[in-house]
């Protein structure tokens, strides 16, 4: 049994949540600054994020071949007890809650600056997918369409027991003890840091971060090289220029 598992193929886990988590467990303010482009990968607190990932990989926290481990096999390793822990978004909690032996905990702090009861990485509910362009010629129709699609999504996710941020008119389903524990922990957290992956990366930076993240998971790529490459990419990131 390995200590932990996460999807590593194509740098998925690193780009989408792991890098951010590893930065903010040391310095949540540095992470918030990175999301809003007030700092970059020259910041020592930001650099420590990649260093923590490198340390975990070299310490054998993850299974061999993590850099090529796809989502399904990673989940399977956890559910079949080949891995003791799973680093994952909470969207899997409704599914995993069916196993009464499963519990969750927020990643421990790496410094005094981080308190897991006061800071969390925020992605949103499964209804983040619809937006209307400010330049549309038909805003009313576009809004109606987005609302229709959002409601359809919400009704679907309701059937799976996933937490949703839209009132569908249906009575909320009874939550499992694990889901209730999650909601009780998550809701009161005052500092919800938005996801860098969703809010700060243009297409090229996002794709290249996946590439660099996958390299980091091989254990043969130094965090210093990762940070150097990311700093160059960050300087060419057009997200904040639009």
């Amino acid at each position: 049994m390995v200590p932990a598992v996460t999807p590593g193929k194509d740098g998925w886990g690193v780009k989408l949540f792991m890098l951010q988590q590893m930065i903010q467990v040391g310095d949540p303010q540095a992470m918030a600054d990175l999301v809003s482009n007030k700092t970059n990968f020259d910041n020592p607190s930001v650099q420590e994020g990649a260093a923590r990932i490198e340390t975990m990989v070299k310490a054998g926290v993850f299974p061999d071949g993590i850099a090529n481990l796809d989502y399904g096999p990673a989940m399977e390793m956890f559910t079949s007890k080949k891995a003791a822990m799973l680093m994952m978004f909470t969207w899997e909690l409704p599914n995993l809650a069916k196993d009464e032996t499963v519990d969750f905990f927020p990643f421990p702090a790496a410094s005094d600056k981080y308190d897991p009861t006061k800071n969390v990485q925020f992605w949103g509910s499964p209804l983040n997918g619809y937006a209307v362009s400010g330049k549309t010629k038909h805003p009313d129709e576009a809004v109606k369409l987005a609302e229709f699609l959002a409601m359809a999504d919400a009704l679907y996710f309701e059937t799976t027991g996933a937490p949703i941020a839209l009132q569908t008119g249906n009575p909320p389903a009874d939550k499992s003890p694990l889901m209730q524990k999650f909601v009780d922990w998550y809701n009161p957290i005052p500092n919800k840091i938005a996801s860098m992956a969703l809010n700060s990366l243009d297409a090229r930076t996002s794709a290249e971060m996946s590439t660099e993240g996958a390299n980091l998971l091989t254990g043969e790529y130094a965090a210093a090289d990762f940070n150097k490459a990311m700093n160059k990419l960050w300087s060419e990131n057009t997200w904040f220029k639009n």
Partner: protein
Amino acid sequence: MNKYFSTKLSIFVFTAPALLLFTVFCVYPLLPEIWMSLHDHDGFRNLGFVGLDNYREVLSTPSFWTAHKNTYLIVGISLLLGLPLSMMLSLFMDVQTPRLRRFFKTAAMFPAILSVTVVAQIWLAFYEPNWGLFNRILQSIGLSDWTHSWLTEKRTVMPSIGLSFLWQYIGLNAILFYTGIKTIPKDYYEAALLDGASFAQVCLKITIPLLQNVIKYVLILSTLGSMAFYSHVRVMTAGGPGDTSRTVIYQMYYTAFDTSQFGKGTAIAVIFIIQCLVISFIIQRFVARGKLEF
């Protein structure tokens, strides 16, 4: 009847539909592709004419050369390992009893008719470092030191993917060679046997020379097929870890669709097309040019 079917007009009429399809779906799309390669295009908007800047930037990207190195490694594996093995398999099939021959023909074709995704998933399971077949076999025979994380180590990732590609298509090439062998007149073999030629001499002096056109055809197919190597990489490693296992086609796809740089992606495509044309020309020009007569 021959008088009508051998005229240039009738040849044109019969080949016109295929020519039309080829022109519409293969030749015509080159024009907007070349246009796009000279512009900064994100897939939605043309952001301006940039001349040869896309080509300059693509040629100065390390991933581009890594992709080329990997692609030509696959071509090398396919030609230097795959073709001889296919030829040996076809010769082996030829000397079997009819029943065994049918079995080998079916077994040879079977991988080729599987979808690439299925083949890639099978080999992904073989290569899995913790519970995959290869590492388990090595551990069970006391060779634990030889186990690898086959698809995440730089040294082993491309040969590992190449092996899955080889496994899928070696049988198809063997069938093509076998079909060619069956067209060789038996008289040559009988004459050679009477003269006391060994199996190796028969293969080298009769079979292979008389197969030159088939060899040329398979060479072109294998070379261009290897150059376009993409699907196995996509499923097995997504070009990773990092860019370690990217091929030219993968790099083209990644640049255009993942990074939304369609101008650079089409520049890679144009460079790739030129390479394929050059290689095809070289094979046509220098391989199996003469007509063989005994």
